[in-house]
């Protein structure tokens, strides 16, 4: 059992998989000699050499094109896009080429590739280096979308993403990089499309992702003090989506909340609320409520960014008010 930071867990997982599969390669800006701007790929160049761990120019289309062309000809690839905001620079490659080519060619090609990227706010980087853009990827058929909240999940889900024969966008949260936890010894491989109930409860279900998971857990602790028992689900993966775990929880609690870091419109929570209202309507004891960042670009100043992102206070207060207004089920 080793204690790993979320940041170190990335390189740990990549090293585990590169040792297993000698054909696996990685490329990206500053990933090799510099070890990544978030220091998530430290040590990989030394262990695996420059043929397998490659620095690239600032050319996001060329990076993902190289990944796609290599993957479709039998080389599994991990490509890093430094900030998830930069996915917009190479979105054609992701949304039109990587995501659709298998379907368009009637299954002639497949893409064993992972696009890793630093996602999310809280680092005071302003509107172009702080976005939570999982929803961009979630709405494109042909992409799998994963966003871990703990070091162990980084290792297990990244390993699973690398072994998956389909393209996976893997969102690493910038504000979780320093969090530490114990990761089991030996090979760690998880399953995509499995949500975890990270706190059991009986009154309300809270679905959260990445940085919002620890905040939802803290809010749940405080709700308990007010007599509200909250179940917290870490979704971990948006595609595939573990609706079974979600619907089972709602059937038990009768109230459903989402905590989303993304701006309001078309967030993943809207899809979840839609599924719950279609398939668990008669289990509900009150309205489903989404707790999100307002529909604004993220501001840079600490005071403003803290107001924008769902805080423990806002999560707690919103749920408490919503439950109080209806009385307990």
């Amino acid at each position, binding site marked *: 059992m080793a204690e790993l930071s979320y940041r170190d867990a990335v390189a740990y997982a990549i090293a585990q998989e590169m040792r297993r599969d000698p054909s696996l390669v990685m490329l990206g800006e500053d990933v090799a000699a510099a070890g990544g701007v978030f220091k998530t790929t430290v040590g990989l160049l030394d262990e695996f050499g420059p043929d397998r761990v490659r620095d690239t120019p600032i050319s996001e289309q060329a990076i993902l094109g190289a990944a796609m062309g290599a993957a479709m000809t039998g080389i599994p690839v991990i490509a890093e896009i430094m900030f998830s905001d930069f996915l917009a620079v190479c979105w054609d490659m992701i949304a039109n080429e990587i995501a659709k080519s298998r379907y368009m060619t009637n299954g002639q090609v497949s893409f064993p590739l992972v696009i890793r990227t630093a996602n999310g706010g809280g680092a005071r980087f302003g509107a172009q280096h702080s976005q939570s853009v999982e929803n961009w990827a979630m709405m494109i058929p042909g992409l799998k979308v994963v966003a871990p909240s703990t070091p162990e999940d980084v290792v297990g889900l990244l390993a699973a993403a690398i072994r998956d024969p389909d393209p996976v966008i893997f969102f690493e949260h910038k504000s979780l990089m320093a969090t530490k936890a114990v990761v089991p010894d030996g090979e760690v491989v998880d399953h995509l*499309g499995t949500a975890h109930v990270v706190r059991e409860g009986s009154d309300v279900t809270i679905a959260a992702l990445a940085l919002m998971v620890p905040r939802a857990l803290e809010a749940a602790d405080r709700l308990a003090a007010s007599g509200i028992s909250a179940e917290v689900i870490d979704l971990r993966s948006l595609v595939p989506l*573990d609706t079974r775990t979600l619907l089972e929880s709602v059937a038990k609690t009768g109230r459903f909340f989402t905590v989303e870091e993304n701006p309001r419109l078309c967030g993943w929570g809207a899809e979840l609320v839609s599924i719950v209202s279609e398939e668990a309507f008669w289990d509900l004891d009150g309205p489903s409520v989404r707790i999100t960042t307002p529909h604004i670009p993220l501001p840079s100043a600490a005071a403003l960014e803290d107001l924008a992102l769902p805080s423990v206070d806002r999560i707690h207060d919103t749920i408490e008010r919503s439950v109080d207004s209806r009385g307990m089920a």
Partner: protein
Amino acid sequence: MPTDSLHDYSLREPRFPDPVDRSLEDADIAIETRLEMYRKLQELRQFGKRAHDLFLQNLVKGTTHLSLGMEAIATGFGAAMQPGDYTFATYRGHAHSLARGMDLGAAMAELLGRENGVLGGKGGSMHLTDVEKGMMGSYAIIGAHLCIANGAAWSAQMRGTDQVAVAFFGDGTTNIGAFHEALNMAKIWSLPVVFVCENNLYMEYTPIDLITAVDHPAADRASAYGMESIIIDGNDPDAVYLAASQALRKARSGDGPSLIEAITYRSGGHSRADPAKYRPKDEVDAWVERDPIPVYHERLLSIGTPEAELTSIEHGVADAIDAATEFAKAGNEPGEAALMTDVWSDGGSQWRN
């Protein structure tokens, strides 16, 4: 240039073709290769014309982008490439697909949206792909596939094979960022890739010279990426074959990428929606005189090929195109079962449990 030409391109100074290079008669190309290139030229031309006819009969839906007049480039490269090599093409990819040996019937059926199409009807005219033949796809948003060709070349380099990736694209592609990203990466990684610009003088509807900073949209950019400027007659299969062979040899021997600008001309418009009225009449007439098929026909005669042999090739291709058309028409419409397959590698499309 009259100022009106800024708005009415048909009033522009025409761009005339260079004369045929007669010395190519003596080029060191086997007669078998030349006859096969003549057969392929005929196949690409007759396929394109048939696709056009079937569109007018409302059997081909959507749109088609034909290579009529431009077939010598796909033909010359097709003859020079080896079976394991990779082709990446644009939406104007019928010729490049057939040049790598895609089945005529399966290609035609795909244009008709039939179950027996090479993509089962899921891709259509703009996405012809046949991985078994090395035809790695037709990419309908220009630029990306140059980067993807790099990836296939990188993969060949890592696997230690001598495969080469060849990316074909139009002059318009040279003004999108991915073109420049791809050339730079190919050079710094010394990738076995050949970039082939088919400069037909028009972006889609706009003359390329009016919207490009340099005269030769590809070749004049080569030096920025440490590559040689190579301009060839894209309407002469022999010229293309020779340039292709040299670039492929260079890539195979580990000496890195090449960028070739092949000058050519579209017989028709950009797509089915375009009557191409923006081109000066004398320009069009001059290029019709330089159509690759009569020019190559004459060359083969002048080096001693009997006329009857060429006629026999033309008839053989005509029969094959008729058979392909019948195969396509006889195909069923794809059934509902195909709709939800092959989003994922497990064959399905499930996104939730």
